[in-house]
């Protein structure tokens, strides 16, 4: 999966760093630890910028190539921070058949934001996701984990207005 590199500056804190190192040490003897470590790291920072991957590689004693390889392989790992308003449109089959592609286009049109990116002020991010399993409500999108279902493109102006 192609990943856009971030343009947002890294703002990690010392406390986050200590939390990360504690996680790595906890997994020291677990076989196959890199995946869970990356997952926890993403919980701590919200995303996995270069700086965090480097800390993981050094602390775990593995190559940066290995960390970067795994981080870019899985679509759940994000190298871009999510926006304060994180919009995710489901493009699972059930939603797609019911027109979620048009919903995505409409949001891009309103916000001027292509799918898979974050506005440079960090306010909005837009992504297309895999099936979130709410197929009964198709087409659906989530904004900061709030689910909106049975959408038509003309709903979007009203929904986005709530997050201005």
């Amino acid at each position, binding site marked *: 999966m192609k990943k856009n590199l971030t343009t947002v500056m890294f703002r990690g804190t010392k406390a986050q760093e200590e939390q990360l190192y504690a996680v790595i040490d906890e997994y020291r003897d677990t076989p196959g630890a890199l995946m869970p470590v990356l997952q926890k790291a993403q919980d701590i920072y919200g995303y996995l910028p270069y700086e965090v991957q480097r800390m993981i590689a050094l602390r775990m004693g593995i190559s940066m190539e290995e960390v970067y390889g795994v981080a870019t392989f899985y679509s759940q*790992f994000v190298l871009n921070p999510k926006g304060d308003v994180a919009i995710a449109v489901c*493009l699972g089959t059930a939603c797609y058949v019911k027109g979620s592609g048009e919903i995505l286009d409409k949001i891009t049109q309103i916000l001027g934001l292509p799918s898979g990116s974050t506005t440079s002020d960090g306010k909005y991010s837009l992504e297309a996701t895999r099936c979130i399993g709410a197929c009964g*409500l198709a087409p659906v999108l989530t904004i900061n984990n709030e*689910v909106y279902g049975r959408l038509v493109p*003309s709903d979007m102006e009203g929904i986005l207005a709530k997050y201005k």
Partner: protein
Amino acid sequence: MIRSHVLICGGTGCTSSGSLKLQEAMNTELATYGLQDEVKVVLTGCFGLCALGPVMIVYPEGTFYSNVKLEDIHEIVEEHLLKGRPVERLVYHEAKSEDIHHATSLSETTFYKKQKRVALRNCGVINPENIDEYIAMDGYAALGKVLTEMTPDDVIQTILDSGLRGRGGGGFPTGLKWKFASGNRGNVQKYIGCNADEGDPGAFMDRSILEGDPHAVLEAMAIAGYAIGADEGYIYVRAEYPIAIHRLEVAIKQAREYGLLGKDIFGTGFNFDIQLRFGAGAFVCGEETALMTSIEGNRGEPRPRPPFPAVKGLFGQPTVLNNVETYANIPQIILKGVDWFKSMGTEKSKGTKVFALGGKITNTGLVEVPMGTTLREVVEEIGGGIPTGKKFKAAQTGGPSGGCIPASLIDTPIDYDNLIAIGSMMGSGGLIVMDEDTCMVDLARFFLEFTVDESCGKCTPCRVGTRRLLEILDKIIAGNGEMEDLDRLEELSNYIKSASLCGLGQTAPNPVLSTLRYFRDEYVAHIVDKKCPAGVCKSLLQFKIDADKCIGCGMCAKNCPADAIARTDYIAPGHKLASFAIDPKKCVKCGACMEKCKPHAIYKD
């Protein structure tokens, strides 16, 4: 003394439409009336009827409420639970009866009548976060029976005799898989894996089982561990399923506390424990070798087979890996016997199969039917048909690895072999219904885009081949296709199928091949007539205004972002204002005009 139970669905579908808030409100409301010791609210797994969510059922009457809103809770508590008068307007219309105090049993409704719930038997029935409720439903009795009355070889023979085949897609006989991994018990470290990386978009049966009946999976894994001589199990579950993960964590903890996982289970000296691992959104990890590579902490790339996992699997040790739904069947087979299981299904596909019904269908949700049920029964009877009243065009099974079943084959009995014969596959059980508004070329492109995105990149036929297929489809959809492209699609598809390393590549061209097989005329329409019959492919569409319907209000022109609409000189008979027309050269096909047009004078051609 509890006199009533309220079962609220806590599956992902209903949770998304607010069922957790309903539970909270219900508890508060009950406390206001002092009913908290008389009425018990239970959060269960998925009922199956996701389209009507949030749903709840009140026992002992069995009243089934659908589409319940927060503001309805007060009425349900005051009228039904306090005064004993069910709230008729909220009762699912099919479950209504003459005598409102004795609701029609849910199993009599068309949605449930033809279903046979084996893997889903406890979903929507028990509280998945309470092990005692599972045990009350004969839970862990199968594990007890296996450990105290059967030898490991007996267990394998039972599963072999039952004819159970893998529910994750391939349909490989489960017993055979176990048999291959059973050699050298006690001398070699072995593993049991559970594939809960349900990546097929539009499929959610594994999730619902984990959410509704997690102990069934734990129990079955322990049984498999005993059968092949493994003491460690891994469940690889998608990180996108937070509710399922939570319930698994609770279930594993409870099972350990009860001594049903861990050391010396049932005092027999058998040890077995389970760890959870979370996927991170890679479709290829549903392939068994890729899944194991991922548990090992690497990029989830598949490995060539042989060696098969039964010989050399997780961390290089013999491993049995089964899908969630396969496991959910196992305790039942042990308890009820081989003959019971074989009484359901067709000659070569025994038992039942769970399908996730989605797309253009009234009753979106989960259904479990005996193998051999026809597609017509599933779509028209259980699924309630197509809501818009449009015509059924095709159903897609098997997700990005499968194919479509056209209307002409709607009476095909669904089982593993029939689906393969008509160019699709069972897959994990996603079943997406499409009507005449779905463009089959666009659908093939949708799945191809998915596989291109999800191809791990290890082998060339899949990495490069699928991308080339996508480019050809893009060309056709843009209106630049030529007839030779259809031969190219077929030729390349066959190369990819025969030369790819793993299941993802070997099945990736299926959506293209099956749409070509059954809907070739649609491809031809795109190429020769430069038209999209379903009105989906934007490049081939023109927005037009029916001058005789146009009332000349100008809303379309006002909302056009490209200034492509202007007034003409023509005044339709009976109208006062001149009509508008769209300049096709300027039109960007956004559809904004069509949305705003009150007299519906704008159409796609």
